[in-house]
Each structure stands twice: as structure tokens, then as C-alpha cells.
């Protein structure tokens, strides 16, 4: 079973040379720590920066340079700043190659819910609906089950949707899965996790074809 950093490490392998990548808040943010340093990647933050770098050193924080999580950041050589409409032109216009975001639930048809729990304080969708509606290549980073141990990979989402039929790939603490017409196709197992463990933790249709390899991290 992986921890959050393990999930981030596995997803980092999906980041290819020359990619522009948008990282959501939470586990996705950690992915930046594990991207190979022999490839060129630029991180986009929807509040208007491309070419995000690490957090600043103490004393070098700038209130005018933050990420979408409102954290102070730095920029790397080649970075640029732009307005919000331009930022979402990049997203909606499919100029961003890869979007990595967290989720509360994913359905076997690729529906995703990650913005609202009815009856609880609703904070809003931010840019998530724009991202999932337009991105060609979306990877969801999440735990396989919720805190109660219930599956987050469902036949149908129970929470209000963020987008329909948009998730292509999911990396959890237990497995790597692809969303297909017929359900969740199991691609890889996390170290120490069996196919049966994954079956038991997946409510939606799970397709298991042949031997399922263990993840290489």
C-alpha cells in the first residue's frame, strides 16, 4: 500500500518531457517533487503563472507571487505571468498537456465528484470544472477508499458532479486504473497489494485481464 508521497511518485512517471502540467491541491502538489530532473516540464497554476518553481526561502516571499492554493512560490527561468482569462484559455483550449487532481469519488464511466458535500460548508469548485471539462489527459490522485473504508471508485457518483465522463486514469494507494467503456481496467498493483484486495475495495466494475504487474516506483 502506498502513502500520499508514493501516489505522487507513481504519477510523476506519467509526466513526460515537454509537458505543461496543471497540478491540483493536495496529493497532486506533491508530484512536482518526484518529476525526473533530466526532463523539461512547466507547471501551470490557474491563478496566472506558468513555470512555477519551489517555495521561496524565508525572507524572500512575495505577496504578488502565489499559486492557486494561495501559497507563496517562486518562478523558474522561462516563467510567465498572465491574467485569469488567458489562464483558462490555456486550460479550455487544451494547451495544457496533463491535469492531475484529487477526487472524493470517481465513477466507472469517468464521472468525477470533488467539490461539494451536501449539508457541509461548500467552498466552491474553483477551476476544477473548467479543468475536467476540457483537459484531454486527466489523472486522478486519491486514496482508494474514504476514511470509513468505503470505496471511492463507484458505479455512480453519489456526490454532486464536477464533470462527466472525463477521468482517464486513476492512481490510488492500491492501484493504477484506466477508465474504459466497460469499467475500471486494473493496470498495476501497489507493492504488497493483491488483486483481491483491489477488488474488495472497488465498488464499480473492475476489469482484470491476465497478470497484473506490481508498480515500479
Amino acid at each position: 500500500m502506498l502513502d500520499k508521497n508514493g501516489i505522487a511518485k507513481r504519477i510523476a512517471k506519467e509526466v513526460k518531457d515537454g509537458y505543461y502540467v496543471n497540478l491540483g491541491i493536495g496529493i497532486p502538489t506533491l508530484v512536482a517533487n518526484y518529476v525526473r530532473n533530466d526532463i523539461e516540464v512547466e507547471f501551470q497554476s490557474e491563478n496566472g503563472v506558468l513555470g512555477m518553481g519551489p517555495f521561496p526561502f524565508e525572507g524572500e516571499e512575495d505577496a504578488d507571487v502565489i499559486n492557486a492554493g494561495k501559497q507563496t512560490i517562486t518562478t523558474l527561468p522561462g516563467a510567465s505571468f498572465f491574467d485569469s482569462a488567458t489562464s483558462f484559455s490555456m486550460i479550455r483550449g487544451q494547451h495544457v498537456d496533463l491535469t492531475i487532481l484529487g477526487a472524493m469519488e470517481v465513477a466507472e464511466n469517468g464521472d468525477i465528484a470533488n467539490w461539494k458535500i451536501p449539508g457541509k460548508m461548500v467552498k466552491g469548485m474553483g477551476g476544477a470544472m473548467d479543468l475536467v471539462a476540457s483537459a484531454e489527459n486527466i489523472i486522478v490522485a486519491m486514496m482508494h477508499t474514504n476514511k470509513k473504508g468505503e470505496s471511492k471508485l463507484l458505479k455512480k457518483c453519489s456526490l454532486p458532479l464536477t464533470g462527466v465522463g472525463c477521468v482517464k486514469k486513476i492512481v490510488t494507494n492500491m492501484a493504477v486504473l484506466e477508465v474504459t467503456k466497460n469499467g475500471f481496467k486494473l493496470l498495476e498493483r501497489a507493492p504488497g497489494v493483491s488483486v483481491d484486495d483491489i477488488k474488495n475495495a472497488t465498488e464499480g466494475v473492475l476489469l482484470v485481464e491476465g497478470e497484473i504487474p506490481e508498480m515500479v516506483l
Partner: protein
Amino acid sequence: MIVKKVANVSEALQGVQDNMTFMFGGFGLSGIAENSIAELVKIGVSGLTCISNNAGVDDFGLGLLLQQKQIKKMISSYVGENDEFERQMLTGELEVDLIPQGTLAERCRAAQAGIPAFYTPAGYGTEVAEGKETRDFNGKMHLLEYAFKADFGFVKAWKGDTAGNLIFKGTARNFNPNMCGAAKITVAEVEELVPAGELDPNQIHIPGILVNRIFQGEVYEKRIEQRTVRQRD
């Protein structure tokens, strides 16, 4: 040269009234019109509809207007870094319309550009789509979204000149340029206001035609919401 400079924030906000719709630039607390917000608190206008990506924190940004119960409705993409906001929302004192961030930006840009409405895929199949016209383009479903209509837009830039030309800094740019010229009256406040001719025309982000009034803010706190740093090796 057409002069957009006004003497101070008080002159810049001439004409604001109860029950108006305002646009506010800023992302979190970055790039917010601090001086205009402070003046609105002072004037005490209420029943306001505010279009802003976020709603500030308890004691800063739009949180200051919330504290005084001046806001009737918020149109935002992400809120709730703010206890007073949550309280007013749960008691129904405050109406909240949550919309996707890209749609919010584009509804500003559309208003600026004289485009009455546009189609976007964001929110299709979700509760955001309820009651909205939908249409298939190239095999993909889209929602019809309308340009905003607002009385005043309050934006903040880094530098400006007396002709109303603006230059933004870093991610404090965000929604500010998209809101210029998107309301009936655009009020720009800047950290540094210089005479026309001092800014390089090649470097202007927003031309003065989209700004009605400009003034230099007296003080900028520029509060950081999430101070994150790394250790030196």
C-alpha cells in the same frame, strides 16, 4: 492626452450606491483593491452584489465588507476562508452563486469585449448547468453563459500613469485586467502612479481606454494568505 487621474480614493468612488453590482479583482488576497475596499467600508453602502473570485478572509479583503453586512450576494468560484462568510451563508443572510473559475474570468472578459454570451464546456452535466441552454459543438456539450453586468469594477495594478494605462505584477494580475472596462465605471488603484509618458507603451498590460478613474493607493498591506517557505541548505 485624456486624464484619468483623480485626486484620491474618495473621488474615485463617487457615485457608488446601495444595491449596486461591483466587480473586484484579486485572487485570494493577492492583487485586491485594498484602498477601494476600505473606502467602501467607510461609505457604508449596502445590499451589494459582488463579483469576485474569492471573498477575502475575516479581517481583510472583502471580509471587511462582509463584517459590516454590506454584501447581499457573492458571485465567486471559491469562498469560505472566512468564518463570517460561512455564518452568513448558513443563516441565509448572504446569497452565494458559485461558478467555475474560468467561466467567471470569461464572463468578465466578455463584458469587457462586448460579447453578450458564449459557450463553454465547464459545468456541463453538473448542477452548474441547471436551467442553462446547452448546445453540441463538434460532438461535445457546452453551456451558454452570459457576460456580467456591473456598475463599478475595482481593480488594482502595480504601476499606472495619469492616462489610466496599467502594468500588473506577478500573479497579482489575475482577474484585474479582465475586469477593466467590464463594468460601467472601472476604478483602478495603483501602488505607483506616474505622469503619462513615463511608462513604456510596449510594456502596458491594459490601455487607459478601459479605465475610467485612477489613483495611487495610500497604503498597501499586501497580506500573504499562506506563507510557505523552504529551508536553506
